[in-house]
């Protein structure tokens, strides 16, 4: 794609333009899904399973219907179309009938005059269960063949060996996206058998397809509208309440609203996969990787969701940004009776980064060289083959630079600050300065951008030039990341005018923009806007024989030949483009092929203080170096790096959803800990700008990378401080304090 820069325009690419939705958001005016309401609406509620695995032997809705003010009580019998949903394989029931397979699974939904009555009605339904023994152990699940997908990567000589061998076993707990906006929304019956739905999403066209199937309606009878999203991070890729709201609205003939509370939100969306990983790294005496063997188990939970794609990513990014000629990796996404897992920022590449970076540190220690030196010796770059799939890297991939830039940062000050606010345990005053040990650790992470494995990945955009300005139409979802600003900037730079608005259309008005995930919308929705705006520009120039355009109109040789009004006299200039990225391939039986369209790399350096007696950790600083392609909005790049880094920090030292035989024990913000301001260290974000080959103006996606290597860097720093192996993330106080090594 062209990277020519055109006449500079105010608010164009490269500037830290402020968000167009910033003002309504600070005024409390921005309508999130949970703010939507309507005259005459009913409230919906959901009855969920308290058991992780049981046969449902009876459902009696009569007591619920007997409550005054209740308008609907629906069960699996009331789902008119396909009884199940799911992106890759629709196997999760809209409402459970014969059996429940996870804690919190929806069984019935109600609609009533107010929220309290709807909840009471849901609670009044009498459900009888025959309890079954839940399967929650990943190893057992794999042994029993409960596997959603097995991905194998086999490359080089599987029997080759290196002189130096390190082996390790690693575990990762379950992380929650914990977007602050819970699942919420409202559905309106259209009076003709169809329905309009407003609910948070990451891909409304995908939702639309699933909803239509389950409602048994025709495509045009369902319109899915974008609704204000309070953060996503993967949690909104799979359906939660969408079909339920539509069912209730169609049944009652009235608008129906639902807002999950936090506990229900934990039950209502997928989580990041817990993992168990066995690794064996072999190298020559100089530290050159010779062979990596690994077995990966990811807990997919009860239903398929996106597990088949997550396990593929885990396998392809199981070695990191390092060359290695001989590879044997087996990855399994297994089925258990834990709550379903799915997408979260980093998508399979987070789990393995923790393991392979720990392995690289062990290998460096074994050989007796500096851990960064070991990484540099093996660093993957353009022209090299991805060790797992054999794909030759043709995009910029500055692994060496991200490492060197971090290494060149001034060494962290090693003085522990003697202020309770800065000590592990904080103002709990648990720790004194004398007991604290400090450590420094590094990690490097690699991930693909956009969809892979021959997926037909596209984004549509429409750009309309009118006398009032330029309209950009898209179904791409703004989840908070700032895509709305970047699309505006791209259109401005192409069309030479500041007057651009981005309008988010419903599914009936524009084609799919694909998912707001996989770090893909800057390149994909951005690529579509670039292409559509460029087409408008060409058409405008052609209409009047011009050679340039700006806010006034079209120019030839510098002078204005047609104003925008003149240009649009015969109607607006309008172009719709469906943009596709370069093709990818399906893997062969050994996981080989050109499976990915693009990659990005990042590295983190963390400094931590640890109270080894109590096992408490405080992250003192964490610095990031990251490749980002052409920077379209510097402020927004830093915002993504800082936010993603903090999610990795949380994963390393505090965030874990605790399952006890399949039952979630901490589905609330009191017990599921998120990093607060006091946990947030200063972050230096160093950006390496290398234009990519196919994104608009050379832009690349990057928003997942900060969440990949940050946690592993914190883990490495804690290991350095404590001299303990710490093979489980998040690390718990007892892992440090009670370790006997």
């Amino acid at each position: 794609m062209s990277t020519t820069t055109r006449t500079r325009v105010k608010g164009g690419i490269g500037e830290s333009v402020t968000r167009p939705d910033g003002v309504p958001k600070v005024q409390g005016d921005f309508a999130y899904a949970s703010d939507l309401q309507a005259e005459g609406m009913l409230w919906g509620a959901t009855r969920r399973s308290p058991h992780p695995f049981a046969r449902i032997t009876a459902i009696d809705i009569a007591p619920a219907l007997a409550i005054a003010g209740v308008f609907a009580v629906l069960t699996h019998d009331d789902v008119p179309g396909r009884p199940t949903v799911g992106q890759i394989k629709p196997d999760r029931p809209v409402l459970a009938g014969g059996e429940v397979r996870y804690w919190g699974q929806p069984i019935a939904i109600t609609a009533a005059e107010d929220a309290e009555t709807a909840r009471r009605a849901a609670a009044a339904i009498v459900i009888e269960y025959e309890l079954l023994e839940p399967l929650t152990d990943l190893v057992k699940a794999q042994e029993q063949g409960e596997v959603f997908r097995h991905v194998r990567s086999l490359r080089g000589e599987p029997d080759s060996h290196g002189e130096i061998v390190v082996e390790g076993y690693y575990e990762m707990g379950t992380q929650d996206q914990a977007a602050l906006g819970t699942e919420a929304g409202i559905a309106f019956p259209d009076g003709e058998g169809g329905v309009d739905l407003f609910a948070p999403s990451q891909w409304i066209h995908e939702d639309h397809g699933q909803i239509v199937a389950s409602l048994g309606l025709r495509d045009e009878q369902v319109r899915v509208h974008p609704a204000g999203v309070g953060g996503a991070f993967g949690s909104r890729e799979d359906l939660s309440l969408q079909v339920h709201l539509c069912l209730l609205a169609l049944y009652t003939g009235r608008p129906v609203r639902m807002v999950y509370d936090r506990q229900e939100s934990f039950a209502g969306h997928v989580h990041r996969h817990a993992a168990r990983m066995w690794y064996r790294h072999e190298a020559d005496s100089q530290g050159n990787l010779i062979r990596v063997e690994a077995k990966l188990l990811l807990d997919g939970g009860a239903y398929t969701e996106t597990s088949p794609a997550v396990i593929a990513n885990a396998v392809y990014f199981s070695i990191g940004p390092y060359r290695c000629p001989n590879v044997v990796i087996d990855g399994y996404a297994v089925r258990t009776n834990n709550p379903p897992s799915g997408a979260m920022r980093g998508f399979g590449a987070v789990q393995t980064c923790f393991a392979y970076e720990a392995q690289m540190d062990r290998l460096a220690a074994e050989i007796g060289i500096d851990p960064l030196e070991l990484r540099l010796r093996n660093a993957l770059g353009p022209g090299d083959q991805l060790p797992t799939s054999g794909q030759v890297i043709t995009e910029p991939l500055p692994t060496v630079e991200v490492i060197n830039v971090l290494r060149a940062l001034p060494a962290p000050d090693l003085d522990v600050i003697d202020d309770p606010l800065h000590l592990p345990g904080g103002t709990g005053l648990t720790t004194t300065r004398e007991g604290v040990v400090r450590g420094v650790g590094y990690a490097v992470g690699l991930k693909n951008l956009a969809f892979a494995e021959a997926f037909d990945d596209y984004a549509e955009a429409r750009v309309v030039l009118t006398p009032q300005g330029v309209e950009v139409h898209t179904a791409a979802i703004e989840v908070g990341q700032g895509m709305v600003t970047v699309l505006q900037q791209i259109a401005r730079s192409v069309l030479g005018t500041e007057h651009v608005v981005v309008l988010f259309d419903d599914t009936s008005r524009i084609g799919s923009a694909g998912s707001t995930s996989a770090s893909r919308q800057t390149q994909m929705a951005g690529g579509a806007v670039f292409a559509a705006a460029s087409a408008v520009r060409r058409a405008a120039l052609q209409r009047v024989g011009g050679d340039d355009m700006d806010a006034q109109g079209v120019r030839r040789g510098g002078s204005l030949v047609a104003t925008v009004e003149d240009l649009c006299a015969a109607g607006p200039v309008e172009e719709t483009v469906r943009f596709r990225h370069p093709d990818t391939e399906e893997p062969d039986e050994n996981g080989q092929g050109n499976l990915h369209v693009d990659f990005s790399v990042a590295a983190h350096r963390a400094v931590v203080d640890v109270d080894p007696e109590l096992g408490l950790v405080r992250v003192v600083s964490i610095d990031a170096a990251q490749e980002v392609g052409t920077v379209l909005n510097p402020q927004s790049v830093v915002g993504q790096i800082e936010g993603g880094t903090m999610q990795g920090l949380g994963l390393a030292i505090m965030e874990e959803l605790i399952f006890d035989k399949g039952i979630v024990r901490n589905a609330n913000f009191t017990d599921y800990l998120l990093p607060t301001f006091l946990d947030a260290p200063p972050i230096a974000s160093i950006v390496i700008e290398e234009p990519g080959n196919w994104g608009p103006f050379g832009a690349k996606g990057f928003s997942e990378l900060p969440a990949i290597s940050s946690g592993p860097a914190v883990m490495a720093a804690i290991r350095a401080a404590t001299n303990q192996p710490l093979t489980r993330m998040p690390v718990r106080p007892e892992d440090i304090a009670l370790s006997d090594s």
Partner: protein
Amino acid sequence: MKITLVVNREEREAAVHGPESLLFVLRERLGLLGAKDACLQGECGSCTVLLDGEAVCSCLVMAGDAAGSEVLTVEGLGTEDELHPVQAAFVEHGAVQCGFCTPGFLISTAHLLGHNPTPTTDEIREALAGNICRCTGYGAVLRAVESLAGERRS
């Protein structure tokens, strides 16, 4: 029961049923949707409002107990045409991503600066520790608040 309270400098009357929270009454009865409802258990600060000048989690305040009080929500911080300096600083410094935490942060920040116009970095971090943001990692929020503290210092 019916309660009367002053919300954003205007006297308002609201019906309250049983143990409904101030947050619920603001959002569902008075149509003030600015304060948010991310946890409903006092852990996230998204529902922060000023109650008689003190920053509180409105999800934890019984609406009945707020009768006769003065409440300030994010809607009352600036005016329609002019942002409060805290609002402007948040937009300017990129402290708003999804924005779900923002109304709570704005109220907590305005409260902090009202008491301590030139807070140190640690004072800012401590004062805002009850407000969770999942998007920004707090860096941009800190820069926004420090810009105001700096302006006042100079």
